[in-house]
């Protein structure tokens, strides 16, 4: 004799609901799309002065996050500088020569290749005054590809760091 009580029916329904093909498939949550850049990365930055242990004209990668500025070289972090230690940041205009390329061209073509030295690459110069862990005043000079200095300025402004841009001089300058 078949039991036809409501409790039994309910139990049967619950049992059937466990069957996979009868379960409603819940669509997976839409993955959060991370912002296009959680940080600002600028490759091909030339170090001029200020990073301990780095020679002048060494190439470093500059990574700006929400809290700090990091310098990477060959996938190794060489210095991390929190924004709270900044005291003044300036964006200047500068120029770089092509000494290595000039030397190669001179060897290949003779003296005429030295004319390449007349060509200068315009760069943005980022000058950062900051304090070290012991409160000592320190400074750093970096040369960035032209245009990247403005990106740094806009990025830092989001986090309360003001970048000064002194007016350009009236006469050409020869930056270090």
């Amino acid at each position, binding site marked *: 004799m078949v039991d036809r009580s409501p409790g039994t029916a309910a139990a049967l329904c619950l049992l059937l609901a466990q069957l996979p093909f009868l379960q409603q498939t819940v669509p997976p949550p839409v993955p959060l799309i991370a912002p296009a850049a959680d940080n600002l990365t600028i490759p091909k930055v030339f170090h001029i002065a200020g990073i301990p242990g780095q020679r002048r004209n060494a190439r470093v990668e500059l990574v700006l996050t929400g809290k700090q500025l990091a310098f990477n070289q060959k996938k190794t972090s060489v210095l991390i500088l929190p924004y709270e230690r900044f005291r003044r940041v300036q964006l200047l205009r500068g120029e770089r020569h092509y000494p290595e390329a000039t030397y190669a061209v001179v060897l290949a073509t003779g003296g005429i290749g030295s004319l390449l030295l007349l060509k200068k690459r315009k760069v943005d110069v980022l000058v950062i005054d900051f304090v070290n862990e012991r409160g000592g005043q320190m400074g750093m000079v970096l040369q960035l590809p032209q245009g990247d200095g403005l990106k740094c300025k806009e990025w830092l402004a989001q986090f309360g760091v003001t970048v000064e841009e002194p007016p350009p*001089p009236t006469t050409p300058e020869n930056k270090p």
Partner: protein
Amino acid sequence: MSKTRLVLLLGLVAALVLATPAAAQKQVKEKYNSIEVTRFDIQKDVEKFDAAWLITLTEELVKQLQETNKFKQILREGETPGEASAPTLKLVGTITKFKPGSRAARYMVGFGAGKTVVKAHIKILDKTSGAVLFEDDVDGKVIMGAIGGESVGATRGLAKEVASKTKKEFF
């Protein structure tokens, strides 16, 4: 007064006159093992020596003083020293002349063309009392070098001269 006594008296006076600065100099020798490096000022009529040059010069000064291997501590301006009571020197200076030069001119013309020059007047003080222990004019130049030489090398030249004079004066 006999001639002999006069000569002896003059000799004694001369010895005292000569010995006093020598004795004072001997007092500063080997006394200081810490130095604070401050950022130089720029004389009003000096143009184009901007923040980038100034910071590069300061970093070169610290580096060259470190390379003398004579100082236990080389402090930055405002830095707390490890040994608070240690006698400390303080290096201050003023940029008095700057000529940026031209790398292209140095390489293609030579003979002194395009020379980069940085000159400064430095003072080394006792940090505690403020007494001036030494002052002098120093300079750094780039006249030639690989593919004309980097203009910023003038800061290295100036820093080397500062380090050399400091070492000679205090050690």
